[in-house]
């Protein structure tokens, strides 16, 4: 009979526990999870890369919805458990769901500590713990105003770097004299401080927060010494407290955390606890490596293996801020019974310190160069006697035994049981044997099979070196993703070479860049065709055989092989004459479905290919041209009714939308381009999820870009504010041209922007007038060749072969 297992909290610790449990005892339990956060299990560690923009939330999901379905697990998202009844063996959520359990696991994690100062509840004060916090910070960062981070530890500094990267003016307040004082000594703390200040982050150490000030919302911070630091956003990252309230109320033994034995069992034989909320051997933990160890132990016990026991180990700390190399491990306080070895290289900004006790390493701090971290960790773990190599110890592993200073040598020399991935406890031997045994060739495969580098990612470099060692020359870590199987070159290289070598036809590109196939494939040909159309609008003859069917016949293919037709309706505005013409076409060609699209126009579906030219001819007579609803090109410009009609309107949004659409229709872009113009910030045209959008305001036009509302959902970024309609058009056109020239084929504007960097785009379009004008002029030039209505061309006979069968045979009387 299956037993009922209920889990409170759906963080990283129970997620890992379930993975083990499913492996060990797949059918033993019927699992139900309650999670106060309204989402699945994601990699909390990676919130900082999401904040900085290096990753998307989707990329850090550990278990997607499908995983729960596959394993028959019920997950209550957004349900906080408010009571445990140990006698009845039930838990009850704040939404009133009660569930009985045979076994219960408490994994409620931690809650951020809030300084008990006046003003702590003002709007604009947030903590840094979950995705909601990140989203709140991203929203606040759009203002580009001042932020204060209280707390100069790991979390605070990651938040500060992320916010600074998003354009905020950031000050970090730290109460101790040294940043990350629990992980760094003053020397390394100093180097870190210098580096962060170099990035424009202000740091105030020994800063005691007295109050958060503001009227109705945060306006600043008052320090003990009377200084006031202005801020519109305050992030409190001053530590965490194990979340034990629920357990305490249920009468479980609670100390700093929920007290558990070496098998993760609480004082109640039916209840286990793990993760940051658990206290084992008198310790609570805040890094995932020991939590994963707890997960392993708890899973064993739940599967009936009662012998598994948790063992303490030190976990190295790394700061996940791109470009800062920092490694800290163990205990490095000064002491009479300790010796230390220090190496400094001021010019290179390198600092290394190893602390020894009785000839054994007990602590290490590395700054600026951390490649030997794994080796020091290994020596410490094994309690190796280092007296033999004391003289050269600090120079690292490559120096021992006179080995050459080959960057690979260090990794090659690591023993098989050296831990490479600290988060997941994966050692070198496991990685190497899995690569060889399973024939893995990509980093993603290695992640999937070994879990190495699958959590915080800071060991990715090491894992890649192991792959190079194991696979030899065939693996090159920095290898670019080739465009397709026909070439080893990536999109960016191909684009660069097309320009540099002046290659103006697809065969020329394939010849000069040594394509491996005779005439490409369905991936590279459309891409090359676009690159050439974009770079040589006047000279290049568009190769229709390298376009997808929709762009070849200027209609959208449907699943049954019929087509749909969407005429352009400028800015979503139409009139009785147009509607009448559409109605007549629908009747004449017996069009089965007429539908209003999301882009404010009308879609006619279910048209036979052979009828297309006749349909277009009739639509053309009423003045319609192709809406290019099929194009990797300008699609629609949605508008609201704006100042002409709406009582809130600040500008003529309809007029501007129509103007933009008339200026830009016909242009090809790397991927589809959808726009909108709203007449005021109420945003009825939904401009803030478009590729490019405009929000009209009293003082002008706020230009937005890089939104998404498809597979991904993403609000736009602000490009800048301009005063006049002319300027708005110029900036939008220039931005589009920059995107056309730089993006990879099929790369939407938001992905491109993420790759290039928002600041760089703002610099070229907002700040650099010459650049902007040049982009604008190149767009205008290419429009000369692009603004030809493809429908009327085809009505006049172009590409006739596309719309007629080659022959009709086998009928009693041939139809042609």
């Amino acid at each position, binding site marked *: 009979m299956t037993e009922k297992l209920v889990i409170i909290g759906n963080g990283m610790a129970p997620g890992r526990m379930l993975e083990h449990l499913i492996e060990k005892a797949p059918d033993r339990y019927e699992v139900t999870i309650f999670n106060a956060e309204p989402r699945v299990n994601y990699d909390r560690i990676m919130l900082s890369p999401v904040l900085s923009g290096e990753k998307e939330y989707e990329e850090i999901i550990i278990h997607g919805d499908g995983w729960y379905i596959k394993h028959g697990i019920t997950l209550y998202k957004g349900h906080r458990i408010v009571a445990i009844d140990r006698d009845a063996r039930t838990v009850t959520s704040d939404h009133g769901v009660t569930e009985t359990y045979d076994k219960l696991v408490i994994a409620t994690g931690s809650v951020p500590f809030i300084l008990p100062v006046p003003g702590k509840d003002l709007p604009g004060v947030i903590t840094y713990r979950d995705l909601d916090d990140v989203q709140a910070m991203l929203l606040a960062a759009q203002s580009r105003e001042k932020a204060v981070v209280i707390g100069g530890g790991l979390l605070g500094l990651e938040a500060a770097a992320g916010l600074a990267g998003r354009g905020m003016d950031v000050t970090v307040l730290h109460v101790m004299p040294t940043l990350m004082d629990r992980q760094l000594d003053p020397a390394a703390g100093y180097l870190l401080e210098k580096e962060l200040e170099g990035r424009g982050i202000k740091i105030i150490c020994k800063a005691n927060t007295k109050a958060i000030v503001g009227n109705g919302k945060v306006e600043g911070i008052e320090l003990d010494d009377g200084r006031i630091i202005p801020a519109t956003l305050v992030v409190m990252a001053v530590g965490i407290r194990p979340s034990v309230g629920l357990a305490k109320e249920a009468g479980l033994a609670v100390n700093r955390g929920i007290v558990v034995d070496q098998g993760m069992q609480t004082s109640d034989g039916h209840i286990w606890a793990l993760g940051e909320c658990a206290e084992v051997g008198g310790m609570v933990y805040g890094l995932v490596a020991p939590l994963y160890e707890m997960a392993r132990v708890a899973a064993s016990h739940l599967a009936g293996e009662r012998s598994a026991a948790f063992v303490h180990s030190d976990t190295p700390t790394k700061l996940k801020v791109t470009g800062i190399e920092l490694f800290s491990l163990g205990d490095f306080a000064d002491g009479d019974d300790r010796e230390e070895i220090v190496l400094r290289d001021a010019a290179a900004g390198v600092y290394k310190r190893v602390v020894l006790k009785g000839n054994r390493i007990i602590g290490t701090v590395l700054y600026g160069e951390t490649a030997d971290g794994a080796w020091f960790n290994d020596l410490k773990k094994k309690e190796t006697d280092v007296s033999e190599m004391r003289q050269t110890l600090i120079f690292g592993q490559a120096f021992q035994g006179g080995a050459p200073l080959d960057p690979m040598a260090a990794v090659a020399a690591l023993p098989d049981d050296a831990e490479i991935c600290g988060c997941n406890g994966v050692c070198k031997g496991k990685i190497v044997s899995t690569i060889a045994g399973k024939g893995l060739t990509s980093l993603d495969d290695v992640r999937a099979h070994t879990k190495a580098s699958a959590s915080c990612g800071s060991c990715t470099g090491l894992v890649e070196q192991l792959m190079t060692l194991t696979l030899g020359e065939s693996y090159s870590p920095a290898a670019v993703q080739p465009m397709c199987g026909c070439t080893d070159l990536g999109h960016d290289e191909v684009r660069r070479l097309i320009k540099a070598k002046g290659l103006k036809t697809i065969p020329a590109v394939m010849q000069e860049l040594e394509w491996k196939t005779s005439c490409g494939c*369905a991936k590279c040909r459309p891409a090359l065709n676009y690159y050439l159309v974009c770079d040589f609008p006047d000279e290049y003859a568009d190769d229709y055989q390298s376009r997808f069917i929709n762009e*070849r*016949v200027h209609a959208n293919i449907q699943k049954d*092989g019929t087509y749909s037709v969407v005429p352009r309706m400028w800015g979503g505005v139409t009139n009785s004459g147009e509607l009448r013409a559409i109605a007549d076409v629908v009747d004449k060609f017996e069009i089965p479905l007429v539908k209003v699209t999301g882009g404010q126009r009308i879609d006619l579906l279910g048209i036979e290919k052979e009828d297309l030219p006749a349909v277009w001819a009739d639509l053309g007579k009423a003045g319609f041209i192709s809406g290019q609803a099929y194009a990797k090109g300008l699609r629609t410009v949605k508008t609201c009714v704006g100042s002409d009609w709406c009582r809130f309107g600040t500008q003529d949004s309809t007029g501007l939308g129509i103007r933009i659409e008339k200026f830009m229709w016909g242009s090809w872009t790397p991927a589809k381009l959808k726009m909108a113009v709203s007449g005021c910030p109420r945003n009825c045209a939904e401009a803030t999820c478009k590729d490019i959008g405009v929000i009209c305001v009293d003082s002008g036009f706020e230009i937005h870009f890089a939104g998404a509302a498809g597979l991904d959902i993403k609000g736009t970024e602000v490009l800048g504010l301009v005063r006049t309609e002319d300027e708005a058009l110029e900036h939008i056109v220039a931005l589009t041209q920059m995107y056309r020239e730089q993006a990879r084929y099929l790369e939407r504007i938001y992905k491109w922007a993420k790759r290039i960097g928002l600041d760089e785009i703002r610099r070229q379009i907002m700040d650099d007038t010459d650049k902007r004008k040049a982009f604008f002029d190149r767009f205008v030039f290419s429009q000369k060749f692009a603004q030809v209505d493809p429908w009327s061309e085809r009505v006049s006979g172009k590409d006739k*072969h596309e719309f007629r069968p*080659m*022959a009709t045979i*086998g009928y009693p009387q041939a139809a042609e």
Partner: protein
Amino acid sequence: MTWFAIGNIADIPLRGARCVKTPQGKIAVFRTAENEAFAIEDHCPHKGGPLSQGIVHAKAVTCPLHNWVISLETGRALGADEGAVKTIALRNDDGALFIALESLMMAAE
């Protein structure tokens, strides 16, 4: 088996295709970059997509609906996908194309 004239190879664009209508369904006729011609059913083994609308590369076509790649020579799906369409015998007399059909044609649609 009867040979039916369907037109000249020049009626098809290089790296392109056209279709021939028959009472039993459409047949796709392809012309490769090397000026060879092939005929197969115009019906993708995956979900029936019209192969004549795909992109032609080497001796294969990529289906316009979900990108299966079908060999023009064997009619079989290439790569990881499994499935095949019927190939149709085709004769090329100096550019004049003929396809062979049974009097009772079995083409699917």
